[in-house]
């Protein structure tokens, strides 16, 4: 199967979740893993929108999410940490801690990151980006964008596909994504 044919058929995994040919490709294709994650979010939104979904949501959603989680775990989580909560601190070059994060499982598909920054340089016309490394290739993956107050503080919550507990985080200005302000 070519990448294009698998990519086109990825929505089948929402309905026929044991397609081994598709899963075999997805397990080694970061682009397909990302699309599958986005498809699962779309699927969840559509199920939530279903008339009468509020009463059925928990049952159907739990089933769908459990299945998708099984897919995600099968294809994208070769090594998952046993701990359900992890913390990290981001330091500037001089060692000062300017941000902290707490990662925990948000649901079957996502990690939730509670993020607190303090003492970051203010950037009135710009925002910051929080980055991590992709689970497979180590390529930078943007976790989210945030602004700081006039005193350099920020509280934010980000969601991250629950594909793997990331190893390293760093912060850059959004207009200079190679200029690392702080990192773990």
């Amino acid at each position, binding site marked *: 199967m070519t990448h294009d044919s698998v990519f086109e058929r990825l929505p089948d995994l929402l309905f026929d979740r044991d397609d081994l040919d598709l899963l075999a490709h997805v397990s080694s294709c970061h682009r397909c893993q990302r699309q599958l994650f986005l498809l699962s979010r779309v699927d969840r939104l559509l199920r939530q*929108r279903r008339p009468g979904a*509020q009463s059925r949501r928990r049952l159907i959603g739990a089933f769908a999410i459990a299945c998708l989680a099984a897919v995600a775990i099968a294809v994208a989580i070769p090594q998952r940490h046993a701990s359900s909560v992890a913390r990290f601190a981001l330091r500037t070059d001089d060692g000062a801690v300017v941000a902290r994060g707490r990662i925990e499982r948000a649901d079957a598909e996502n990690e939730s990151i509670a993020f607190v920054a303090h003492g970051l340089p203010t950037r009135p016309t710009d925002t910051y980006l929080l980055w991590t490394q992709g689970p497979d290739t180590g390529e930078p993956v*943007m976790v989210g964008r945030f602004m700081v107050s006039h005193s350099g503080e920020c509280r934010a919550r980000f969601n991250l596909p629950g594909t793997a507990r990331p190893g390293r985080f760093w912060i850059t200005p959004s207009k200079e994504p190679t200029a690392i302000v702080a990192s773990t």
Partner: protein
Amino acid sequence: MSDAELLRAVAQGSDPAFEELRHRYETAVERTCRSVVRGGAEDCTQEAFVRIWQKARLFDASRGSAAAWLLTLTRNVAYNLRAKKGPEPLELADADAQADDVGLSVDGFWLDGGLARLEAHERQVIELAYFDDLSQSQIADRLGVPLGTVKSWTRRGLNRLATMLGEEAER
């Protein structure tokens, strides 16, 4: 054209861009208005689009997605209208529905705009599958098209929605 590009065109006074934005987000804006000011949702929707037209130049893509900006503006309009009208009686069931309404989230708000951007047949098969709970065979029977066509339309529609969602997340 993306939502952000549409907003930029609206800011420059483009009527076609405004009409396209209204087409994409009318349902979402109405839903949000209805969840806040149930009695005056039509007025709220009108007012929200007037404000979108007037304030589109203030949209800054570097600070968030177009859907988030539209939702925030709509909420502000709705809460202002509700404040002017005074509190409405709210039954417990309604309060639960409000708190749980996917239309109040950015993703839920975005979903209406995303569905509006699909081809009509793609949107139709997705709505029949998810909202009417029909199997793909049942959809094929109802529409009088081959099962393979339904599968193809569903795949294409879902993939397009996922791609749009990814583009929104990257803005």
